[in-house]
């Protein structure tokens, strides 16, 4: 499974880590939905730590789409909401 951390690139994450990541992802979604900045920052930190613990960098020259994409560590809740709210906000 390929996971991209925005601003850091792509990583290979073994499928065995998926369950744990999904649980953390749910916490993240709840935090975004309830607009809870503290919970969001905490949950994002945990998801990123979880991904990093299991990940190895994906080949730099590969042209693969990621299965999952994560906001970078210093993303604010507002930035993530903006991304989710309007696909037009993704540049490129």
């Amino acid at each position, binding site marked *: 499974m390929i*996971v*991209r951390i*925005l*601003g850091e*690139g792509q990583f290979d994450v073994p499928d065995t880590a998926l369950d744990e*990541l*999904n649980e953390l*992802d*749910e916490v*993240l*979604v709840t935090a*975004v939905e309830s607009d809870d900045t503290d919970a969001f920052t905490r949950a994002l930190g945990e*998801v990123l730590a979880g991904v990093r613990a299991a990940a190895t960098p994906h080949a*730099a*020259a*590969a*042209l*693969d*789409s*990621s*299965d*999952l*994409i*994560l*906001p970078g560590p210093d993303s604010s809740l507002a930035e*993530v909401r903006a*991304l*989710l709210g309007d*696909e037009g906000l*993704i*540049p*490129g």
Partner: protein
Amino acid sequence: MGLMKRLSMLFQAKASKALDRAEDPRETLDYSYERQLEMLRDVQRGVADVATSRKRVELQAQQLQQKMTKLQDQARQAVEAGREDLAREALTRRTALTSQIEGLRTQHEQLQAEEAKLTQASQRLQAKVDAFRIRKETIKATYTAAEAQTKIGEAVSGISEEMGDVGLAMQRAEDKTLQMQSRAGAIDELLASGALDDASAPSDPIQAELNRVTDGSTVDAELSRLKAELGSGAQPASLEAPRQEEKR
């Protein structure tokens, strides 16, 4: 649906828009490649812009530091001259600058971090663009338009995601740079205004007062030296330059 999946789908939606554009999918390859080169240039310019901003912050911090040293010297001079009021004024101004310097330091760290991130983003994109160029030629040479479609879709989606990521990094860096610029403008105004005037400039009230005090004591000292010479009848061996006046 999880947040991570939603984000990846948003990036993919963006990519499929790029793919829908051309009738012959192989045209998409060339179009996408053009965009990639453009983006590479943009991100490299972005790195240079952030570096310029970082240097400006460094320069300002340096200027503020000089002001602070000067105010410290003035405070010492004022105490020596027995003018506690002037010393207090100089130290008060110096304290006000401390918080500005702190702010600049934070900003400097942020800009440095953005510069590093953009540099890495640019390197990542460069690697993908190089890979894309090779893939593009292979696809064009090997496959008919119909056959090529899947291959092209894969390649374009893969790189489009990278471009979206780099684009976001550039936006962030631009935001940081803009924030920095408004602050830098405010500090430039501070530096230009009388509040922080060059301490040796006549419009600096602390320096003017200090000059008056030290000039006065220099004159007094000269006067008593002359009196002493005349009194003893001795010739002055040499005219020593009065040091305090050199500072003016």
